[in-house]
């Protein structure tokens, strides 16, 4: 039996007090425990940002790579070894700016990984610039006259890309977040979770208070209805107008299912092909 202890990292998280990332750490750990997965079979890849420091704080294999590049690294790992559970964990700047192209194309490919974004609507680690999800009008270090860049809608993006699991969580609701995370990890295919994650230091506009009033939980939505999901994802407001939960979930073949080679074998557990004199015949 796997317990929370198995996942306890050696390094104490150094996020600011109250930072949303603590909840995500908790939710991921709990979900893995609930699914009884051994830490050695889990890899967490991350980008660069406050959120992306996660792999240091949990006792799994961790690969803390480059800003925006966590998704291709995760896919490379999964394709090499299908026995691993691979979770990519990063920030909104990380995934919706620097890594925009990878998020889309790997979601489209429906690679069997889980991608969770700590969406604090701000660049945390670089001390508070506007991120792709910063609302219009917000003053940040690089938008002293107020942000004018239209915000990025992560759920619309994931849906359009063809992700087979699209959800939104909230750091203030660890229980709900854990459930979503568990389902995402269980899901076969590309699962995406956008987490509304307060940044207590640089996000002075949308914090716990705001979200506590603003969010509500999806119930009875038809998770296979693309347009319903898309429309729900357009909802945003301050009075229980922001849906959380699983917006979309369908069962469809993964990229791995379609590939001639890795649909049949695990490369990690298969000896490489041995070339013989015969193979040279085509060069004769």
């Amino acid at each position, binding site marked *: 039996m796997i317990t929370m202890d198995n996942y306890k990292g050696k390094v104490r998280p150094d996020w600011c007090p109250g930072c949303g990332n603590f909840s995500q750490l908790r939710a991921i750990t709990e979900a893995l425990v609930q699914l009884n997965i051994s830490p050695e079979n889990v890899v967490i890849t991350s980008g660069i940002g406050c959120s992306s420091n996660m792999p240091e704080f949990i006792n799994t294999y961790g690969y803390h790579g480059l800003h925006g590049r966590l998704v291709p690294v995760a896919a490379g790992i999964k394709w090499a070894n299908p026995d691993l559970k691979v979770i990519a964990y990063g920030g909104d700047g990380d995934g919706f700016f620097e890594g925009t192209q990878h998020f889309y194309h790997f979601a489209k490919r429906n690679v069997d990984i889980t991608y969770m974004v700590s969406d604090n609507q701000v660049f945390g680690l670089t001390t508070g610039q506007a991120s792709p999800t910063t609302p219009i009008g917000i003053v940040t270090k690089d938008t002293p006259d107020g942000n004018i860049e239209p915000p990025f809608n992560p759920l619309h993006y994931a849906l359009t890309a063809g992700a087979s699991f699209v959800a939104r969580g909230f750091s203030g609701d660890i229980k709900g977040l854990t459930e979503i995370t568990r389902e995402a990890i269980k899901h076969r295919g590309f699962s995406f979770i956008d987490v509304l994650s307060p940044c207590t230091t640089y996000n002075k506009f949308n914090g716990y208070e705001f979200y506590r009033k603003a969010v509500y939980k999806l119930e009875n939505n038809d998770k296979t209805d693309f347009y319903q999901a898309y429309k729900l994802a357009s909802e945003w407001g301050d009075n229980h107008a922001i849906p959380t939960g699983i917006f979309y979930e369908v069962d469809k073949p993964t990229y791995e299912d379609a590939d001639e080679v890795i649909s049949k074998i695990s490369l990690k557990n298969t000896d490489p*092909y041995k070339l013989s004199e015969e193979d040279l015949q085509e060069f004769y």
Partner: protein
Amino acid sequence: MESTVIRIGGAAGDGVQSAGLILAKSLSRNGLYISTYNYYQSLIRGGESWYQVRASENVVKNQGSGLDILIALNEDALNRHTNPGINEGGASPLSGIAIFDGEMITNYKKYQNIKYCPIPLRDIALKYDKNSLLKNTVALGATMAALGLGFDTFSGVIQEVFGKKGKVAELNVSAAKDGYDYYLKTYGIFKKLHPVNRKLYIASGGEAVGLGAVNAGMQMYFAYPMTPASSALHFFANHAKKYNLFVKVTEDEISAINAAIGANYAGVRAMTGTSGGGFALMSEAVGLAGMTEVPLVIYEAQRPGPSTGLPTKTEQGDLNQILGAGQGDFPRIVLAPGNVTEAFDLAKEAFNLAAEYQLPVFIMSDLYLAEHVETLNNIDLTYKMEHGLIAQDNDPNFKRYEFTESGISKRAIPGQKGLMHNEDSDEHDEYGNVVSDEITDPKIRSLSMEKRMRKLETYKKNMPPTNAYRADGAENLISQWGSTKGVVEEIVDDLIDEGFSIGALEINHVYPLNPDIAGHLKNRNRIIVVENNFSGQLNRLIKSEFLVKTEFIGKYDGEAFYPDELKARVRQMLNIQYENVKIGGDK
């Protein structure tokens, strides 16, 4: 060296390249060594294109100067390749026979030293197909006759090449025979080649890198298409099912290299490949592999820059880029095969080096090497896969980045029990924990830098000796890297015959430079560095490393060096009084 050069010239879309390949294969099956040259444009149809095959009983080291047989598929080609004034970046005009359709091509200037051999290519082809698509086959048949080679070997190749199409193969054989007979009857053997009874393989540099990688246990290839790296991509894609390879074209080069890093981290040998522009995009991730010490093999096939440059031409202009890729100092290894056989050998070496030293290893090629076909010489399929240092499951003392004397530490592969750890692009301590989170530790930072950089010192002690060619006691030395090997060695032979005291030094382990090079550079009258680029990028490296005066010969017109051209430049240099190389002038 005694050899024969045959060139097929036409327009893009005329099938010049496939005809050339058939010719190369046919000559190779006659036991002759061959080397080819492919001249084409970044354009799909129209434009000028030609393909040259050089053949000999001896090892053929380059495309060769001279031109014995020209197959001209259009008027333009006939005029261009016979005109002594026209010099395509070093290629020789014809001095021998011209094979062409005398009914189609009538407007041409005649030269004395050329024997014009018109053949009714189209009329013959029309016998077999109303679109006269078999013209090229007819011309090839004629060529085999001109070379005094038997028809059977050639017809075997034709059958194989067109074999899948059944009837088509048959028609091609007949058309070829008609060409063969027509030539023999009308003009007689031009220059007799003697078949040798041996089995030789031919491949392009891209295929050879591919074969070497597969031989080395590579199981995954990630790329975004880019000439001239695509010959490797296509090789892998075409052999994916057979060799159990996972081949993935990603949305961009950044994704390709990061996925390859993920795969290698997960314990499977993976490679990424691209050309200069795509590599520029990868450069951030090279540093990631360097910092996290993930083994990674990167294939970089150069083409002339800057920027898009000349996408279908050749140059060796990316060494500075490779050496500078990624911010900060970290160890890397750069290999640059000198020919197709070395492409195979060094690809094999690259994977073991990456695993043993846990760092990025480059295989640098160029368009000339990647796309031209050459005889594979002494291919050895045996291979001992070196896995490098891997920790034991549950090792209680496991430190991923242990400060060792060699600089190399044990890895752990995800899935291994009890070795969970973090690999970090931030500076980290021996355990992989970030040193700058609560308080930066300047001491640990220094130790980590030194640990990583120490790998190069360890490697330097284990490098294979640098290849010298007839350099013992030679007064002068030509040094080169990569695909200029063959042309340099050949002109060294010629210049020695002319009475010069000269040898060659092939630097195919380009970075770090082998300390043994110091010895090779000692006591020379002059050291000439030959590179297929403008500024002398290896030259700069040699000078900074060994503080020796050198002279530089560069070529940057998009073409490879031809032996006569290079020989003339070196000879001229050797003939003028040695003056001190102007300090600071490496051009």
